[in-house]
């Protein structure tokens, strides 16, 4: 797309812009460009030059963007409007995958399988891409093309994308690209770049594809006066933007401001309307919804733009991790300007200023950043225009993340597996045994999970509760319609799995140590493969203690297995329940009080904890009292997951994506993230 080509500079007379537009349409290309619609500059398909915003300007301020007629023939003198190129590279609505219909024959219905929807897209040319927007495309490329999983639709749309950049000649009232180091100068990553002068455009060629678009136009080379005028034009814009904001150390300051009272103040004004995130050219959060007809036929999964400001964003079965608007605002701002750095190596913000203009009540992030994370010392001189220094990388753990294969990042396909057996553990918990020969699924590690999809119903994340040579087990609590549907599957039914996903338990670290496994309720399920693993290597582990809490005796999982383990003496099993009737002769009380009494050499103990977060919190406190350090306390977290591969954004916790950086974390890695409310 962008190759290293020696740029040459031409001059395109104003009246010839139409010819360039024609050339851009060559080969069936769709040209997207700015146009005035309903009082704003929108990015729509453009056929003719008179559809461009000729003679228009925009007066931008927080919460305001009014058209201003300028009575000239200049085309591109507007700041970005509410529409961004994201609309055309990462569409608001997309069918992610579809399902085959249930066969209507007398024979047993064929299992319904997911089928990918081919990405078919006419090649696109983007006309009028500003410097900040080029930066935004680079930011989204990093997220969607360079992670462990590639967004295939985005890749297809970007592959043949012709970028005709435009260097801004006016600064918008809310622009701050100079503070983010992204503009206003267009420096690279374009096929052609236009700088508008009064009588035409200085045209820079960036790539062979760009050069090809100029063929036949026989443009004269730009004169030195013309190039000087272009440089002066953009220099004026830089000057118009005034002093850049003090961005030094902003990510650190932001992440340290988690408990600032300012967030609550912002929430007094914030409407949680999602406008800022949806106009933002780098926000990438989406959600998956199920579509089908009344019978469940024609089933598909649709991906739509979502936002961390919606209530459902952090919903899980049985609760919601982020309900307060102040917590949602904090998530957005600290992600955009702070945790984006360790995640993707740059700031998430490019300074386009859309979120400021298009906030219905005019909340200005520039102001809020300075208020919530003020600079430590006032800058005497304006800081140099450069991106903020990158954050140190994540504390390295003993594990490595799964690396992409030689063929490139894995596409994470769905695999159809069959239900071999169904076992009731408790009143509302079932263990399904699933059969498969897929080597990927069978090579999972303890602590990993799968997304389990039923057509037209849902695709929730579920921990694997045991691995077999020929399949795996899922232990599921019927907590809502999705899990209820899965729990009701019978022998012979099929379900589609995607995985194994996530980072599992660091089983290697258990060797030579005492192991404490502390869990409650259904939390035992993701720990069972860990127990399987260390019991198979019993001679390499010192003492093993299992502390297991449940609501009542009837709510315990794997009762027979646990009793056998306890009787064998191979591990020390302590069970407890919250309440019981008189027939229960075992322990009644919280599991944290069981830990108190475990004899251990706490300097060589490693603890693995899973349960409701409040229980894990209480457990961690007791482990600390026993002298077990954060590096040797490992927890597994639950968050809302729609994709399981770090692309939908829902599962974020501080700098981490729980689905791909976790769900297993050490307390040392989590740090304060584990303790801050609503993070």
């Amino acid at each position, binding site marked *: 797309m962008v190759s290293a080509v020696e740029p040459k500079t031409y001059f395109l007379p104003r009246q010839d812009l139409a010819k360039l537009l024609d050339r851009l349409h060559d080969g069936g290309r769709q040209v997207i460009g700015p146009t005035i*619609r*309903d*009082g*704003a500059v*929108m990015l*729509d398909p453009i056929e003719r030059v008179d559809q461009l915003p000729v003679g228009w300007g925009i007066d931008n301020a927080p*919460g*305001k*963007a*009014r*058209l201003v007629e300028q009575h000239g023939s200049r085309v591109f003198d507007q700041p970005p*409007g*509410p*529409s961004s190129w994201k*609309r055309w590279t990462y569409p*608001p*609505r997309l069918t992610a995958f579809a399902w085959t219909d249930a066969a209507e024959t007398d024979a047993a219905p064929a299992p319904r399988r997911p089928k990918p929807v081919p990405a078919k897209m006419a090649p696109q040319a983007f006309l009028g891409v500003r410097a900040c927007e080029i930066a935004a495309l680079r930011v989204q490329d990093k997220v969607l093309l360079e992670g462990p999983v590639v967004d295939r639709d985005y890749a297809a749309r970007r592959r043949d994308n012709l970028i005709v950049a435009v260097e801004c000649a006016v600064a918008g009232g809310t622009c701050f690209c100079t503070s983010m180091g992204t503009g206003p100068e267009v420096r690279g990553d374009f096929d052609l770049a236009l700088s508008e002068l009064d009588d035409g455009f200085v045209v820079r060629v960036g790539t062979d594809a760009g050069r090809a678009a100029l063929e036949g136009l026989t443009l004269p080379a730009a004169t030195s006066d013309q190039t000087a005028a272009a440089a002066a034009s953009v220099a004026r814009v830089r000057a118009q933007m005034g002093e850049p904001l003090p961005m030094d150390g902003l990510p650190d300051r932001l992440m340290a401001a988690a408990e600032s009272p300012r967030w609550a103040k912002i929430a*007094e*004004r*914030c*409407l*949680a*309307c*999602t*406008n800022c995130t*949806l*106009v933002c050219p780098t926000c990438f959060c989406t959600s998956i*919804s*199920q579509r*089908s*007809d*009344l*019978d*469940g036929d024609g089933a598909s999964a649709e991906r*739509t*733009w979502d*936002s961390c400001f*919606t*209530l*459902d964003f952090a919903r899980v079965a049985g609760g919601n991790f982020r309900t307060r*608007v102040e917590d949602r605002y904090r998530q957005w701002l600290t992600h955009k300007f702070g945790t984006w750095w360790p995640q993707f190596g740059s700031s998430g913000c490019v300074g386009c200023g859309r979120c400021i*203009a*298009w*906030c*219905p*009540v*005019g909340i200005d992030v520039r102001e809020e950043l300075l208020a919530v994370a003020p600079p430590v010392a006032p800058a005497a001189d304006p800081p140099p225009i450069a991106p903020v220094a990158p954050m140190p990388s994540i504390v390295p753990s003993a594990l490595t993340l799964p690396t992409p294969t030689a063929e490139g990042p894995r596409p994470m396909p769905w695999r159809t597996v069959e239900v071999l057996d169904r076992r009731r553990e408790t009143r509302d918990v079932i263990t399904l045994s699933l059969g498969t020969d897929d080597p990927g699924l069978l090579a999972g590690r303890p602590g990993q999970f799968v997304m389990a999809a*039923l057509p*037209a*119903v*849902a695709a929730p994340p579920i921990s694997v509760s045991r691995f077999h040579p020929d399949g795996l087990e899922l232990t599921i609590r019927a907590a*809502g*319609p*999705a899990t*209820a*549907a899965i729990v*009701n599957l019978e022998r012979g039914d099929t379900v589609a799995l995607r995985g194994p996903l996530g980072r599992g338990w660091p089983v290697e670290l258990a060797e030579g140590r005492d192991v404490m496994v502390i869990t409650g309720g259904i939390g035992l399920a993701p720990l069972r493969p860990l127990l399987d693993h260390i019991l198979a290597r019993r001679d390499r582990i010192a003492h093993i203690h299992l502390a297991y809490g449940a609501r009542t005796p009837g709510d315990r999982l794997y009762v027979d297995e646990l009793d056998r383990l306890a009787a064998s003496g191979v591990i020390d099993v302590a069970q407890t329940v919250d309440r019981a009737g008189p027939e229960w002769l075992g322990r009644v009380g919280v599991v944290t009080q069981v830990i108190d009494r475990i004899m251990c050499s706490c300097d060589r103990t490693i603890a693995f904890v899973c349960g409701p977060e409040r229980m894990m919190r209480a457990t961690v406190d007791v482990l600390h009292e026993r002298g077990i350090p954060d590096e040797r306390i490992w927890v597994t977290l639950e968050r809302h997951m729609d994709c399981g591969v770090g692309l939908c954004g829902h599962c974020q916790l501080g700098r981490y994506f729980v689905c791909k950086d976790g769900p297993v974390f050490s307390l040392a890695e989590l740090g304060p993230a584990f303790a801050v409310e609503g993070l």
Partner: protein
Amino acid sequence: MLGTRHASAHRPRVGVVKFASCDGCQLTILDLEDQLLAITEKFDIVEFAEATSNRSQGPFDVLFVEGSISTPEQAHEIVQLRRQATMLVTIGACATAGGIQALRNLADHDAFNRAVYPQPQLIKSLATSTPVSEHVAVDAELYGCPISGSQMLELLTALSIGRRPQLPDEAVCALCKRLGNPCILVATGEPCLGPVTRTGCGALCPSFGRGCYGCFGPKEAANSASLAAWFGTLGQSDEQVAREFAKFNVNAPAFRAVVEAKR
């Protein structure tokens, strides 16, 4: 949940009943012309006066209730109906918020009565028009004035298949942005209730350049005070701001608070 993935011989018994309302929500169900036959195959519609002469007093697996509670009779009847229904779903702004007739909650009902009727003592109506949820437990709500046909269809599909109905509680703005509508508030300075109103209508009015009327009621965490203050900075008087919020969902707490503060 009603739905199972396997074919069931028992079609759920469905009823549609009406209290104080215009009947538009029931009409919206009938407007699902392409799916009506499929719906009747999946559900046994035993009571729906607008659609069929078959009548039933219950029991119902699902009972859709349109209309607000406006008379003593209705207050009594809804309690009886609740007993007959396994699942009760309110449909429309009247049933979920009290409707536009709830404007009388902020005014002097008796004075209206006396002004209009020569023998006001013959009129038995309550001083307030209230949503069904203030009288009985409600299992689910479909908002809107009228409701959205596609949301009704989604609810019926979810009941039929056994999935969580996808009825997002997000601002109209989210849909405007997905559709590519420029924001009316920001681009023109005209008032629009979209940022505090639930989506469901398909962002209908903003798609035609007119500010949102708030037909689907306040979204979760609706910060109407903030939006009302902003309308003020756009040049609207307190009375104008109050009128913006005093429409179909005037009795919904988040909107009512603004009306009472600005009156």
